[in-house]
């Protein structure tokens, strides 16, 4: 960090670096692969560092980092595989939206993470932002660059899929 301005370095240290671990955890859950997650988080922090002199102190650094993170994830995937746009999302939703099953009483971390892993990536990303990292819907919409209505519908569908998966896992025991 040789940017000359010690204050920038200090600000980056105090405002950006504390979010490293949570970004890495989120990226790992979204990408499903630790190595690729490290690639995008490294890219995120390099980008953030390069443009940190333009970042306004006092605004939401965490949300800004997440926006860069999801941009990096999107770019990383788009480089070599763009077929996801063809997923018949609505049909998936219809198939899972009709019924609310009871959620098992005992939920282990393993159950929850295994279920999360099976949820379509678009839904999973919103769940990670809203349910895990507690971003407001508006912030999640800005991070993912989608309308707020899309955030709400993906969240609802993701949560529903999660409940279904937890029930089916319980039934399978």
């Amino acid at each position, binding site marked *: 960090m040789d940017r000359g301005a010690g204050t920038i370095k200090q600000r980056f240290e105090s405002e950006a670096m504390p979010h490293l671990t949570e970004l890495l955890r989120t990226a790992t859950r979204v990408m499903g692969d630790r190595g690729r997650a490290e690639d995008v988080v490294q890219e995120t922090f390099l980008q953030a560092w390069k443009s940190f002199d333009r970042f306004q102190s006092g605004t939401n650094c965490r949300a800004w980092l997440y926006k860069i993170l999801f941009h990096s994830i999107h770019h990383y*995937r788009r480089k070599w595989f763009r077929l996801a746009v063809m997923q018949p999302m609505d049909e*998936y939703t219809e198939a899972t939206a009709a019924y609310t099953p009871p959620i098992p009483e005992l939920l282990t971390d393993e159950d929850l993470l295994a279920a*999360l892993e099976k949820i379509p990536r678009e839904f999973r990303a919103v769940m990670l932002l809203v349910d895990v990292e507690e971003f407001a819907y508006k912030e999640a919409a800005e991070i993912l660059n989608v309308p707020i209505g899309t955030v709400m519908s993906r969240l609802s569908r993701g949560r529903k899929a999660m409940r279904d998966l937890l029930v089916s896992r319980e039934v399978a025991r």
Partner: protein
Amino acid sequence: MNADCQRALLNLDLEIDAAEAEWQDGHLLGCEACRTEADRRDRVRAGLQRAVKSTPVDVTFEQRLRGSLARPSFLRQWRAFAAAAVVLISAGLYWIGPVIESRVRESAYFQVLPETVSRIMRVGLSDHVHCAAFRKFRKPPVAEELPAAFRPVLAHIPAGYSVAAAHECKTQGRPFVHFVLRGAGEKTVSLVMARKQRGETFANSALRRVAGSAVFTEDVPRFQIAGFEAESYLVFVVSDMTGEQNQQLAFTLAGPVTALLNRLV
């Protein structure tokens, strides 16, 4: 479940204003079923948060990242230039060479392709020859990054084969969705999908139908090819397996692939 319960359950997934929150609190106070459901959902959310946040991370990553950030920018730039130069030179040796070789072999293949090969089979054949037959794939996709919609289809890939590449591509100006499978001995299988163009169908062709099914085949040099169609797509299985194996694979894939393609917009 009455209308109030439906409203309350719907609210659980929404950001609601103060007035609606007041109504929601009132409903939950008086409705045990909804309260129980809200508690369960809160428990899942809290559990998910705990599970994700307690996942261990590689502590050396922060050190490596700090090392990367700490490099002076001129050094980073110098390294970037040096890396770019190495990449360019390596690309010449590592990528461009095989690509040129692949293009030469592709061109040679089509020069000797008999004119009697049907136009419709040339669609799938062209993409297989362009993208798969003579190409090396160095970084296969991880299962997680394959589109979920295609997983039921990929469940039918032959034993011993794995996905070497999956991409959207363009050959002779026409877009394709292309899965390339590789097996032992560099055996290659392409599953090629292309939107139909005007009048394209196997139905009225003079091609051989496989065992009375909707799968068609034709003799082409070097490869085995079989095709079938969905409402808006042509699908081809092209490989260097035996003719029987290729037809059997096309036959196996026809159901799930057609069902999937017919659901796409």
